[in-house]
C-alpha cells in the first residue's frame, strides 16, 4: 500500500469542518459554574487587602476565592494568586465563581483591591541594575557556557566585531484562548483542558491536589492551537481545580482574549551582546555572548536561555565560544516557550554574525557560510551537543542556487529603482526533547485497529501521520486505523506534543508496538490454525503459511478472541491483541534547512515578500502535505515576529498590546506564497527515521527576512521586530 511519504488528507478534519469539534468551552456538565479571574491592575505593588464582600452580593455569584497559595517550582511565592505582592499586570488576585459567565464577570468587577503601587521594572537591562522586583532578586538565573579560549581566539583574529542584538517579546496567539473545565465528583477529579500535554498536566496537578482526590484524570479537549503556550502550569489551572473542589460543582474558566494576552506566558525577549573574531576568508574563530533573557515575574523560562546558548554555534565549526546566560526578573507576564523555543534566537544571532562577516570582508554570504559549515557528521559542538546526520554542504549548495536566482531577480528590480533585497538563513534545529513517548496499538474485536498515543497534537495532523505509519506496518487500509490521544485514562504515562517531537517519538512507539503486535498475531494464529509459528509470516493485514497457502486475516484472529462469551481459553498465547511501547532516543535529532527571501520595502515602510524558498532536511517525511503545512504556517509566524507582532509595555508596565490589532497578528493580506522542497539525507537513528518539522520554519524565517530588508535598505538591522517606522522613505 505505502501510505508513508504520501500527502494523505487528514483524518482529523471531518469533525472540524462541520463544526463538530469539541473544544473545552464546548463541553458542559449539568450544574457547571463559571469562573472569572480578578487580575492585578498594576505591574508592581504591595497588596494589602482583597475585599470581596460586594462580589458575594452580586446575583448569580456562588463564591469567591482569594489568597490561594500553591508551591510550584520556579514560580514566585505569590502563586497562583497574589497574596501580598503584585508582580505584573494580569496576575491573578482572586476568582469569582458564578452561575454563568456574565454574572461571574459582574462579580469580578465588584471585588475591591487595596494596594500600594511600587516602581515597576520592565526593561531587562535596567532590571540588571535594579534591586530586584520579584522576591528581591534581580537575577533569577545565571549560567556560563565556555569552550576553548574564546577571548584568546577573538583577540588573535585579524578582524573583530561587536554588536548588540535584540529579539522582541511575542505572544503565541493560538486562536483558542486557554481554558479549563474541572469536574469533581467527591472522589475523582476530571480536568478537561486546552493543553499540549494532558499527562504532564496530570502530574503537576497531582503534586498539588493528590492528597485531596483519589483519582485524577486529565482529558485534552480539541485544542485550538498552542505553539508552546499551553504546556506549562498556569495559575488558572490550579485555581479552577481548587474551585471545583471547594464548591463541589463542575467549574469552567475560559480566558477572554484580553486576559490571554496578559496572562499566557510570552516568549523570546532576549538581548545578546556579542563579540567575535574572524579571519580574512571569513572563518569565525571565536565568539562571546552576554545573553540576557527577560523572564518576567517568574523564573520558569530560564531553560530557553540554555537552549539558545548551547545552540548558538549552530551548524558552524567554531570551537572557541563563551555564552553567559543571565535571566532577569521584571514586572511583566512570565516568559516561556513559543514555537522554536530558544533556537530561533540562537539562529538569529549566529546568522546575523555570518552576514556581518560577509559584509565586512566583502564576500558572498553563501560562501562565508560554506567556509564555516560543519563538514563531517556526527559532530560534537562546543557545548557537547552531537549533531546527528545529514549533509549540510549539499543543502547549502541547493540554497545557494535559490539565492543566486533570487539575487538575479532582485538585480532586475533594482534597476527600476525599487528597494528590494535577498536574505538567506541556514538553520540547524535541535529536536526530540522530552525523553520518550508512548503509544498503544490495539486490534479491536471487529478487526479495526485503534492506536492510542501519548503525544497530544492540536492541529499538526500527527494522528494522520501515525495512522499512515501503522497502516503500512500492518498492511491494512488507513480507514481501518483510528488514532486517538489526549486522555490520561487511555494510556499510562506520556509527555505530549511540543518541540517537534510527536511523529518521531510517538510515531516510532506506534511503529514498534505494531511490530510486536504482528508477533502476537502470528503466535495466536499459529495455535488457531494448528501450525508451527515459525512457518507463519505476517503479510498484508494477515498471517499466512507460504507452504500450504493457508491464511488468516487480522480481523479473523481478532474476532476469534471475542467470539464466545462462555467457555474457557485453551491456548498458550494470551488473547490480547494490544501492545504498548514507550520509545526514546539516546540523542536529540538535528534537522536543518535554509530559507531564502526576496522582499521589497515600499516607501511607506511596509514590506512585501516577493518570493520565498524553504528547503528542509528533516529525515523521512511521512506526509509531505502536513509537513508543508507546518512550514507555511511557521513562515507567516516568522513574518509576524519580524514585521508586525510585538508585546509592548509602557514605562509603568501597562501592556499596550492587548488585542489582535494592537498586537499586529498577520492577516490574510500579509500572506505570501512559499515554495518548499525537502531532502531526506539526514535521517534519524530511529526505526522510522524522521526528525521533526514543527518548528523549523519559525527558526529559519527570521534572518532570511531581516537580511533581505537589510539588503533592500542598505542598513544594518540588529533587532526584531523590524518596524515599518524605520523603513519609511518620504
Amino acid at each position, binding site marked *: 500500500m505505502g501510505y508513508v511519504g504520501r500527502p494523505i488528507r487528514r483524518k482529523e478534519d471531518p469533525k472540524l469542518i462541520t463544526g463538530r469539534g469539541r473544544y473545552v468551552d464546548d463541553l458542559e456538565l449539568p450544574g457547571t459554574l463559571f469562573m472569572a479571574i480578578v487580575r492585578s491592575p498594576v505591574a508592581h505593588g504591595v497588596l494589602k487587602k482583597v475585599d470581596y464582600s460586594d462580589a458575594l452580593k452580586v446575583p448569580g455569584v456562588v463564591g469567591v476565592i482569594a489568597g490561594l497559595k500553591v508551591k510550584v517550582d520556579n514560580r514566585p511565592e505569590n502563586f497562583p494568586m497574589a497574596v501580598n505582592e503584585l508582580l505584573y499586570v494580569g496576575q491573578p488576585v482572586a476568582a469569582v465563581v458564578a452561575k454563568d*459567565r*456574565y454574572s461571574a*464577570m*459582574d462579580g469580578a*468587577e465588584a471585588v475591591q483591591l487595596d494596594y500600594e503601587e511600587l516602581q515597576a521594572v520592565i526593561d531587562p537591562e535596567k532590571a540588571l541594575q535594579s534591586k530586584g522586583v520579584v522576591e528581591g532578586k534581580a537575577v533569577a538565573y545565571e549560567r556560563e557556557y565556555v569552550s576553548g579560549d574564546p577571548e584568546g581566539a577573538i583577540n588573535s583574529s585579524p578582524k573583530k566585531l561587536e554588536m548588540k542584538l535584540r529579539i522582541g517579546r511575542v505572544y503565541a496567539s493560538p486562536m483558542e484562548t486557554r481554558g479549563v473545565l474541572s469536574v469533581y465528583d467527591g472522589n475523582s477529579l476530571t480536568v478537561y483542558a486546552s493543553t499540549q500535554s494532558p499527562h504532564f498536566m496530570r502530574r503537576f496537578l497531582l503534586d498539588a491536589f493528590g492528597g485531596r482526590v483519589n483519582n485524577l484524570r486529565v482529558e485534552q479537549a480539541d485544542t485550538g492551537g498552542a505553539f508552546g503556550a499551553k504546556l506549562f502550569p498556569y495559575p488558572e489551572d490550579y485555581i479552577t481545580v481548587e474551585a471545583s473542589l471547594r464548591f463541589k460543582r463542575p467549574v469552567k474558566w475560559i480566558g*477572554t*482574549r*484580553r486576559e490571554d494576552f496578559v496572562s499566557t506566558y510570552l516568549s523570546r525577549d532576549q538581548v545578546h551582546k556579542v563579540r567575535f573574531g574572524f579571519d580574512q576568508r571569513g572563518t569565525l574563530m571565536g565568539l562571546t555572548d552576554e545573553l540576557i533573557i527577560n523572564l518576567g515575574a517568574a523564573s520558569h523560562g530560564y531553560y530557553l536561555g540554555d537552549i539558545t546558548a548551547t545552540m548558538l554555534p549552530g551548524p558552524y565549526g567554531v570551537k572557541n565560544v563563551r555564552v553567559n546566560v543571565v535571566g532577569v526578573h521584571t514586572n511583566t507576564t512570565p516568559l516561556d516557550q513559543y514555537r522554536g523555543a530558544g533556537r530561533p534566537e540562537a539562529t538569529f544571532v549566529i546568522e546575523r554574525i555570518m552576514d556581518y562577516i560577509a559584509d565586512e570582508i566583502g564576500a558572498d554570504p553563501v560562501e562565508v557560510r560554506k567556509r564555516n559549515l560543519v563538514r563531517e557528521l556526527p559532530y560534537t559542538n562546543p557545548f557537547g551537543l552531537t549533531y546527528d546526520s545529514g549533509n549540510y554542504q549539499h543543502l547549502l549548495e541547493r540554497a545557494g542556487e535559490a539565492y543566486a536566482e533570487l539575487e538575479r531577480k532582485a538585480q532586475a528590480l533594482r534597476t527600476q529603482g525599487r528597494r528590494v533585497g535577498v536574505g538567506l538563513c541556514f538553520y540547524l534545529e535541535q529536536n526530540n526533547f522530552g525523553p520518550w513517548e508512548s503509544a498503544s496499538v490495539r486490534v479491536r474485536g471487529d478487526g479495526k485497529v485503534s492506536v492510542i498515543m501519548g503525544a497530544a497534537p492540536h492541529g499538526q495532523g500527527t494522528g494522520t501521520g501515525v495512522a499512515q505509519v501503522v497502516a503500512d506496518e500492518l498492511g491494512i487500509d488507513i480507514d481501518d486505523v483510528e488514532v486517538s490521544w489526549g486522555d490520561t485514562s487511555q494510556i499510562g504515562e506520556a509527555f505530549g506534543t511540543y518541540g517537534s517531537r510527536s511523529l518521531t517519538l510517538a510515531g516510532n512507539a506506534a511503529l514498534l508496538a505494531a511490530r510486536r503486535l504482528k508477533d502476537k498475531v502470528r503466535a495466536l494464529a499459529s495455535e488457531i490454525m494448528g501450525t508451527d509459528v515459525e512457518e507463519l509470516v505476517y503479510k498484508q493485514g494477515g498471517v499466512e503459511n507460504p507452504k500450504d497457502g493457508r491464511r488468516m486475516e487480522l480481523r479473523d484472529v481478532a474476532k476469534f478472541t471475542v467470539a464466545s462469551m462462555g467457555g474457557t481459553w485453551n491456548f498458550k498465547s494470551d488473547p490480547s491483541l494490544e501492545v504498548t511501547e514507550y520509545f526514546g532516543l539516546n540523542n536529540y535529532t538535528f534537522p536543518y534547512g535554509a530559507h531564502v527571501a526576496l522582499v521589497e520595502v515600499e*516607501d*511607506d*515602510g*511596509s514590506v512585501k515578500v516577493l518570493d520565498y524558498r524553504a528547503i528542509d532536511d528533516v529525515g523521512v517525511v511521512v506526509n509531505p502535505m502536513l509537513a508543508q503545512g507546518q512550514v507555511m504556517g511557521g513562515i507567516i509566524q516568522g513574518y509576524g515576529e519580524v514585521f508586525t507582532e510585538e508585546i*509592548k509595555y509602557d514605562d509603568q508596565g501597562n501592556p*499596550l*498590546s492587548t488585542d489582535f*490589532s*494592537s498586537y*499586529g497578528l498577520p492577516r490574510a493580506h500579509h500572506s505570501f506564497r512559499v515554495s518548499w522542497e525537502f531532502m531526506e539525507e539526514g535521517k534519524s537513528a530511529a526505526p522510522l527515521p524522521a526528525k521533526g518539522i514543527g518548528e523549523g520554519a519559525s527558526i529559519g524565517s527570521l534572518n532570511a527576512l531581516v537580511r533581505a530588508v537589510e539588503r533592500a535598505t542598505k542598513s544594518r538591522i540588529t533587532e526584531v521586530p523590524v518596524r*515599518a*517606522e524605520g523603513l*519609511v*522613505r*518620504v
Partner: protein
Amino acid sequence: MYPPKFGYVIPDSLDEALEFLEKNEDARPLAGGYSLIPMLKLRLIRPSYIVELRRLNDLHYIKSDDKTLYLGALATHNEIATDQKVKKSVPVVSAVSSVIADPQIRNMGTIGGELAQADPVTDHPASLLVTEAKVKIKSKGNERIVPFEGFQKDIYTTDLKTGELIVEVQVPILKGYTYSYKRMEDTAAVAVLLRKEGEVIKDVRIAASLIGPVGTRLREAEKVLMDSKGDSKSIEEASKKAMESVNPIPSPRASAEYKKKLVGVYTKRALLEAMGGKQ
C-alpha cells in the same frame, strides 16, 4: 467579552427613538453595533438603555438627485461600496467604503454609526471631507444640517447633543473630478479629489484620516497645487505641506512622527494617481 447590564428599547418609529433618547441621557442608539458592542464587551461604557435602530427602515436607503447623493444613516458600508449610483456619482465614497475594516464589519456597520462614534481609526472622514459632505441631524421636533467638516470634534466626540441622531449624510455630486485614496490600515490615510482644466489643476481637495484625533482637510497642501500643472516639484512640496500640517495621535504600533510621514507618502501617491486620471 461580557457586556454590563442594560435595558433594550425597540422603537416603532424614528420619533419614538428620538423621544426616548432625549429623555434618557445615558441611553445609546445602536445602529450596526460594530463600534458600540466592542466597547460594551470591554465594559468601557455603561449605558442605561440601548435603543435599537436597525428596524427603522426610513433611515435605510441610498438615493440621489442631480446634485446630491443621500445616504440614509443605516446604509451599511457594503451597501455604499457596491451601490452603482455611488460608484458612478461619488466614486471616492464608494472606494473608501469598500476598504473599511473587514467584510463582516462592512456588512453590519453603518455610515451613521461610524460618524456618530467618531472613533479615530475610521476611513470615511477623508472621503466626506474632500467631497464637502453634510450631515443631517434630527432630534424630537427639530432638524439641522451641518457640514461634515467640524462635525467630529475630537476622539469619540461629535457635535451631536443628547437626543440627536444622524439621519442622513448628503454628499455633493462633483463632475469632472478624479480621485485617489491611499492608506495603511489602522494607521494613516489620504484622500485626494482633483479637477483639471487642460493641464491646470482648477480644484484640489486633500484630506487625511485614520491618524487621529479626527479627519483633517489639508488646505495648505491644496494651495500649493491650485492653478498649477501638478509637476513633480509641486507634488513634493504639497506632500511636505500635508505632512507638516497634521498632528496625529500615536498608537501602540505607530508613533505620531511615523503617521506624519505616512501622510506625506500617501499624499504623494494619491496625487500621482489622481493626476493620472483615475475617474
